[in-house]
Each structure stands twice: as structure tokens, then as C-alpha cells.
């Protein structure tokens, strides 16, 4: 019987469930995030018609611009899955490349969101203008913060990869960031449809 089997490198193979604790923890976290975003989305749905003196959603939303942003985030999911695939193969060069591309696409999306918020503000839609504007900024802002955290994690893992190789357990780290990133994309899939495409 081995007593020293619970090391960081082979933790996945020696848990009571037979599953990686890191991965199980990440899926639990993502499950709880469904409840967080569910609350924010349903609050927006409830208040989207409460515009008061401010502009209506259809007056400020720029569907072509947001469609391009959505496409950028969708493609970042492709580059992320290519990074995870390369990490599992121990292909450091492609892991580094696709992770960097994902971070750039994520930063582009966040930049687009900052531009969009600025345009909305200039059109008279401030944070406290109406219940619609408050719930909109909280929801999309929260998502934007998630994307920003994802970009920071991606840039951090790129920095780590520059110092050491990525095979074995480190590939799971890339996979964890990948799960988070895809979830952020999935949330945007819902936001884009329910908030932007379906008029109030």
C-alpha cells in the first residue's frame, strides 16, 4: 500500500471519486455561476421595459456591432479549445500561441464593451438613468469583469509557460482556464439572444 500517493501531480488518479478534484471543483463553481447569472438575467428581463425618461433598448443597441463582438468571443472559444488540445499533447509552442490569441480576442471583446458603454452613456443612458439601464450595466458589466478575469488568467498562464513546460498536471491548469473561458462564452450566448436580439 502506498501512503504517499496524494501528490499534486497525480491527484486526479487517487481521489475517492476517481475524478480530478480540480475539475470537479471547477464544474461546481460553474454550476453556481449559472445561479449568479440567472439572477442577473432575470432581473434585467423584469426591468427592461422600465426605461423612465431614458432611452429604450431598441434606441441604443447597435446590433451589427454587438454581433461582431459576439463573433469575436465565439472564435476565442475555438482558439481556447485549440490551446487545451495542444496542452494535452505537450505541444508548448501551440499552447502558448493559442492561449495568447485567446487573450487578445478576449481583450478585443472587453474593448468593444467599453466602447459600447461609452456610446450608451453619450446617448443619455447612465447607470442610474432607469431600472433598465441599471440592470443592463450590472448584467453586462458583470460579464465583462468575468471576461477580464479570464484574460488575466490567460496572460498569467502564458507567463508561467514561458518559465516552464506544460505537460502532465500543468495541462490541467490550461484546461481549467479553458472551462472558465467557455462558460463565459456560453453566458454571452444567452445574453446576446435574450438581451440584444429579443426586443423589450
Amino acid at each position, binding site marked *: 500500500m502506498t501512503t504517499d500517493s496524494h501528490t499534486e501531480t497525480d491527484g486526479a488518479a487517487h481521489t475517492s*471519486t476517481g*475524478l480530478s478534484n480540480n*475539475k*470537479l471543483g471547477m*464544474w*461546481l463553481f*460553474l*454550476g*453556481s*455561476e*449559472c*445561479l449568479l*447569472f*440567472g*439572477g442577473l*438575467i*432575470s432581473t434585467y*428581463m*423584469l426591468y427592461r421595459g422600465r426605461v423612465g425618461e431614458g432611452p429604450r433598448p431598441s434606441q441604443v443597441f447597435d*446590433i451589427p456591432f454587438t*454581433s461582431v463582438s*459576439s*463573433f469575436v468571443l*465565439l*472564435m476565442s*472559444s*475555438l482558439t*481556447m*479549445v*485549440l490551446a487545451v*488540445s495542444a496542452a494535452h499533447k505537450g505541444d508548448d509552442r501551440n499552447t502558448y500561441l493559442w492561449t495568447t490569441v485567446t487573450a487578445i480576442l478576449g481583450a478585443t471583446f472587453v474593448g468593444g464593451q467599453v466602447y459600447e458603454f461609452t456610446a450608451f452613456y453619450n446617448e443619455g443612458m447612465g447607470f442610474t438613468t432607469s431600472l433598465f439601464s441599471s440592470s443592463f450595466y450590472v448584467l453586462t458589466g458583470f460579464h465583462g469583469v468575468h471576461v477580464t478575469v479570464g484574460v488575466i488568467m490567460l496572460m498569467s498562464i502564458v507567463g508561467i509557460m514561458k518559465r516552464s513546460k506544460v505537460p502532465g498536471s500543468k495541462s490541467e491548469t490550461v484546461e481549467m482556464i*479553458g*472551462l472558465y473561458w*467557455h*462558460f463565459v*462564452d*456560453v453566458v454571452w*450566448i*444567452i445574453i*446576446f*439572444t*435574450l438581451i440584444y*436580439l*429579443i426586443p423589450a
Partner: protein
Amino acid sequence: MSNAGYVRIAAILAAITALEVATYYVDLGALFLPSLLIMMAVKFYIVVSFFMHLRYESKMFSWVFYTGLFLAIVVYGIFLATFHFFS
């Protein structure tokens, strides 16, 4: 799954997104809302199943994630119904 497979899936997702945007400009009448919701659900399923590999992982991960999602839908469905959102 191969990298080419991932690219094919991304192309499908991009095509569905293009269809979604098209429905915003084309008058589909009563089909507008159901078609958008179906396309949203399909995109959600594709990303979770193939990009997040949930389809190929342990069933426990699926239970953990979909339980959170199911709870969110039920809890906030009741929340919206309480405030007469659907009427």
C-alpha cells in the same frame, strides 16, 4: 476530437450566430421567439458538450453543472412568474 473537428464546430456556431442576427432583421412573425430560443439552446449545448468536453467526461460533471443550470431556470422562472413576467 481533432483540431479540424473543433474548427468545423466553430463554423457551425458562427453559422447559427449569423442566422440569429438574420432573424432580427427578417419578420418571422410567431416563429421569431421560438427560433431564437432554439438556436440559443443549440449553441449552448454545442459549446458545453464539445468545447468543454462535457459529452466525453464523467457523468458526475454533467450532474454537477446541469443541476446548477436546472436550479437557476426553476428558481428564476418562479421569480419571474411571481412578478407576472409571463402574463
